[in-house]
């Protein structure tokens, strides 16, 4: 057995971030920033470019440029101005994800899911919105079938529906195929991908050229991650 395990572990622990560009221009995902953008859109399909830029600390122009490249190479698919990873979601749900990516929607959905029967008053407080704005957003969520509303005396209360749970469940086989397709594609691009971990919600792969290898963690559960931690 070769020696040096301790030193190697020390390096692995000390590594800050995983972002390194790979040599050559062979694949879209050779670029570290582009991997971040791709990962972000797996987490929140159809996210707004301004949110992508803000959350990843890059300019909107940079974020847009990377999404175009990913789109051109088939890693992303477009629905109007919004983009999502090809094959990760049902394309018919692009509108749903675009709605969830608009300001306040995910927050109100998460609050409703955490506190079923939450009043409109509480919802608006939780999301720092006026009653009118909260009410408008709830009716949008209702249109997509994500919440239902009941009158309780002078209160209007919001309840989550089971729609997203059903969609999430139904998406599992699509996510499996997406993960397999991604690994296959990286292989075809000569990046020798290794599948390191496949858990329920994520895929961890390592790939690269020669001795330079990078890690990519791909979230595979968009019907949950697009909104769940927003509250």
């Amino acid at each position, binding site marked *: 057995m070769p020696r040096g395990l301790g030193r190697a572990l020390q390096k*692995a*622990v000390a590594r800050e971030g995983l972002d390194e560009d790979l040599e050559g221009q062979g694949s879209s995902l050779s670029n570290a920033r582009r991997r971040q953008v791709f990962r972000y859109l797996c987490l929140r399909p159809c996210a707004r470019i301004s949110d992508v830029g803000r959350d990843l600390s890059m300019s909107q122009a940079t974020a847009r440029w990377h999404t175009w490249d990913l789109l051109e190479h088939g890693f992303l698919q477009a629905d109007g101005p919004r983009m999502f990873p090809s094959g990760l979601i049902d394309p018919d749900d692009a509108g749903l994800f675009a709605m969830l990516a608009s300001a306040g929607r995910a927050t109100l959905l998460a609050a409703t899911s955490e506190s079923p029967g939450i009043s409109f008053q509480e919802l608006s407080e939780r999301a720092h919105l006026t009653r009118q704005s909260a009410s408008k957003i709830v009716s949008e969520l209702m249109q997509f079938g994500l919440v239902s509303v009941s009158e309780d005396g002078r209160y209007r209360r919001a309840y989550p529906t089971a729609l997203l749970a059903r969609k999430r469940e139904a998406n599992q086989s699509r996510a499996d195929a997406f993960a397999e397709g991604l690994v296959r594609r990286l292989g075809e691009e000569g990046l020798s991908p290794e599948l390191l971990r496949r858990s329920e919600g994520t895929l961890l792969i390592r790939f690269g050229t020669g001795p330079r*290898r990078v890690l990519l963690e791909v979230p595979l559960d968009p019907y949950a991650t697009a909104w769940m931690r927003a509250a």
Partner: protein
Amino acid sequence: MRKIRSGVYGLNPLLDGGVNENSTTVVIGRSGAGKTTLATQFIRRGLQEGQEGVFVSLDENKEQIIREAVEMGWTDILEYLDDELLVFIDASGREFSNFIRKELPAFVADWKGSTARIVVDPLTPVLWSVKDPYEQRDLIGYMFKETRKVGTVLCTLEEHGPADLTGPETVIPMYLADCVVHLKLNSSDADPARLLKIVKCRNSRHSPGSHPFQIIRGLGIVIQGVDGGRPATIKTPSQLRQLLLTRSMPKNVRDSLEKSLDGLTDADFRGLKPEEILDLILQEYQGA
């Protein structure tokens, strides 16, 4: 399963011969109970056998642990450090849970099959890094499962809360570990009493009792009253084997019982009498 020597005087017989290779041991105890001393003895023993040692510290700094080892008289630690056979990793203040999820799988893929001894001291900050108990279980379980592939792992765990180890922070790692050693320190007396108990040890016939121990300069933890040299006696199983022949029972039952007595010693029966066991067996199979 291969046994490796623990490096703690008197501990191997209590663990049925030593620590199982590629297993995870959790050593739990309050501050000052001797956890880091035990961990250092474990690593140092491996170094003497030519195994690499890795000491991942999530709390105290490297200098303090090395100083304490040198004060204990274990100056050879410094040479092992110079030769990089022993590596200290100061992971305090780092997002160790991120490391476990992302970097650890890649590391294990590269080093699978190694026989290093790895200490994580203490495991407690890893538990604190995630809030949800389900997530804690997932993280610790994953960490144990992966690190076992590159060596034999010993984690220390700070004891908080109830003395019977039922606090949530201790239950999860104790449940997931292969072996759990509890170091008890009774400091209320003028003369502090130290006790070591093996709470569990998978695939081993471990000692059920609490054993007094001392920490002695130069030697470290020394457990009292352990007689590891005495050969095991098999009086109870052979008597039981004789008794089985005198009673009537289905042949397949007798055959399987006789087979199950192979390899058992008196220590396994802990005072149970052969006649007592025979009565119970007969009751079970009466009319069957």
